[in-house]
């Protein structure tokens, strides 16, 4: 009973939050709603007994990703109303629904036919985090490492892309050079204004 109540409550909340995300015209609202939605999703993970995943969800999404978005938004003009794509809403909604139904069909088909078996049965005697650790560092070790490298690459890429003049090291420059650079910068800005 508790499970059902919790499911429906969080389901409603998640849907509501995400609905706001895709409909609101205020970027700030969307960000906030998204963050809330992420936390609500982690609730499902806890309900489903995937505590580790739930924790990760909160840390990564609500912590890291949302923070990143928040920082990102500082660059943009978030006060402005967000424009939306023109187009028939019915088509968009229709397409989305159709896709969703088809996904359900495909995913549920083997479940209904009950012909799947567990490759890595969860061990009832150990906790979820422990289990995850065991599987992750044995069977999925290589993907895990790859994912780690990928994150590293993404991090560097993010820094390189967002950062400016990364090829220059201010610590290695003397004052005169830094001064010149600043003048160049101003000139650049000046040019930009003129153009």
């Amino acid at each position, binding site marked *: 009973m508790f499970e059902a109540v919790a499911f429906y409550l969080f389901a409603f909340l998640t849907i509501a939050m995400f609905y706001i995300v895709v409909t609101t015209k205020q970027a700030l609202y969307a960000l906030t709603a998204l963050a809330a939605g992420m936390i609500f999703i982690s609730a499902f993970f806890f309900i489903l007994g995937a505590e580790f995943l739930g924790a990760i969800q909160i840390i990564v999404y609500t912590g890291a990703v949302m923070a990143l978005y928040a920082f990102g938004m500082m660059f943009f003009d978030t006060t402005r109303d967000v424009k939306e794509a023109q*187009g028939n809403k019915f*088509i968009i909604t229709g*397409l*989305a629904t*159709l*896709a969703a139904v*088809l996904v359900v*069909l*495909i995913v549920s*088909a083997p479940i209904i036919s009950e012909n799947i078996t567990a490759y890595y049965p969860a061990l009832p005697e150990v906790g979820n985090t422990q289990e995850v650790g065991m599987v992750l560092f044995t069977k999925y070790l290589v993907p895990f490492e790859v994912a780690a490298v990928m994150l590293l690459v993404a991090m560097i890429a993010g820094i390189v892309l967002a950062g400016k003049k990364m090829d220059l090291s201010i610590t290695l420059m003397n004052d005169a050079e830094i001064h010149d650079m600043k003048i160049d910068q101003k000139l650049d800005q000046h040019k930009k204004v003129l153009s």
Partner: protein
Amino acid sequence: MEIYLYLALFSPLVGSLFAALFTTKSKTLVAGVVPSLLLFTSFVSSSILLVHILNGGAPVHVEMMTWMATGDLYIPFGFVVDQVSVTMMMVVTIVSTVVHVYSIGYMDHDKSFNRFFAWLSAFVFSMLILVMSDNYAGLFIGWEGVGLCSWGLIGFWFHKESASWAANEAFIMNRIADLGMLIGIFLVYWNTGSLQYDHVFEAFKGLDVDTLALIGIFLFIGAMGKSAQFPLHTWLADAMEGPTPVSALIHAATMVTAGVYLVVRSNELYSLIPEIGLFIASLGAFVAIFAASMALVNRDMKRIIAYSTLSQLGYMFAAAGLGAYWVALFHLMAHAFFKALLFLGAGNVMHAMHDELDPFKMGGLGKTMKATMVMMTLASVALAGLFPLAGFFSKDAILEAAFVEHHYVIYSVLLFTAGLTAFYSFRLVALIFHGEERYTLFGIHPHEAYKFMLVAMSPLLLLAIIAGSLKMTYFEMVTAILPDIEYHIHSHVTFWIMTIGTQLFVVIAILYAYKKYTTIGMNVPDGTSETENTFMYKLLKNQYYIPYAYDEYIVKPYTKLSALFWTEIDQKVVDATVDGIAGVIYDSGEQTRDMQDGNLSTMLRWMVIGTIALLILAVMFGLTARYAHVLG
């Protein structure tokens, strides 16, 4: 003997190549003299071969080398000198030697002197291949070779539009007939497995009549083209655009008789199919009168002689068609001599008259050009068939043959034509050499040709006179391989009545022509007189409107159809279809590129649609896999 054969055959080729070396250079006499000497060599060799054959020697047969050999087909370059080919060789070499020597004078002032001799000797070589080959393929080489040389010589003065047009007409019209000939050769090969005369004639005896008739027809179509028989005759008159020696050699004496030679050579075939023979004879008789009628009113000296050639070719075919092969060949020989003489005489006249061709603008030339007058008159007498010149013996034999074979229609047509022949021949002679000196109106001062040209013509004159006396020698020689039917009219009374009657008829025609065209103050045709406005006169003057019809109903439609094929069909249907298919593909790309308009929203939308399509496919495959056993 083989050495003489090769000498006879290849001397003209050497002469031709020698002259060809100088084609781009300015005129050198040596380019004319050397080929003439080489031709004389060829003539001497031919004479030696003739003597050999006359003395009862075996035919000389050589196989030089293989030409084509594939599958069962085996065609060598084989040459044979037998009674028939040696006759032709003599005719060809005599006339061409004379013409060569004559041309040295005639072409004296032409800047393309050297080129002329290259072509002329090449022609002789081709003609010799034609007559000496021992198989149909070799004959075809010569056949096409003379066609080529005829093209080059008719179009010799290629700066003239009419000359190059006539050259092309001659070539193309001959090609039409050559196709028939080619088909005939194919038929021969697939039915007998060979193209060698001896083998083929042997095999003909075992074939059914229908096949033989087919072979006969197709080979004769080839002959019709080369010998300018109706309806492929128009090129011959137009071919007079070439230099006059060319007309004498090619379009009177030798090349046009190749068709007759072919029929004579294939006598074993045509003997087996008398129906086709009768058709040939009828066509020959028709062409004889048809061409003679056109000669009656023509106002072009060379064309008149050309029509007379055509008419005489009709005689030859009439004889050959009736099975009198030796008679046909004899008339061919006699005709070659006097017709070449006639043409060369006409050449002298043209020289004297500065290339004027209308005999109505001449008259009275006999005073300044005695020798030419004598020669042309004698040649005309021979042509008319008066005793004792060559034409009498040969033409009379044809008439007798027709009579004896009981083809009285052909006989009477030919008899009537003999009268016409006499009339137009002497119309020409009278207009040129006698009567008023009309040329004075045009301010021309005629002069006689070079002496050596006249001397060169003299052998022909001699032969035109005496050829008749050679008849029995000739008969005995060729009947070794040709059917030796002697056409004797059994009743002496009939014979004498016929002969004398014919002679009288001819003489009357001559006198009438002479009287009509030598009277002082005779009216020059200018389109006003009553006779000129009659339907018949116009019909004859316009050559039965046949050239006009060809131009209107064949040449023009062909040109139009070609243009239509190109612009309408090739470009607007065939190519347009191809481009259309490409266009559809291109347009579909053009239409669908809106999908890729670069806007991420649109692209995402299409991505979703694509995903859905894939998902539907997945569902469908899943369902079919699942219910496969239910569906069966």
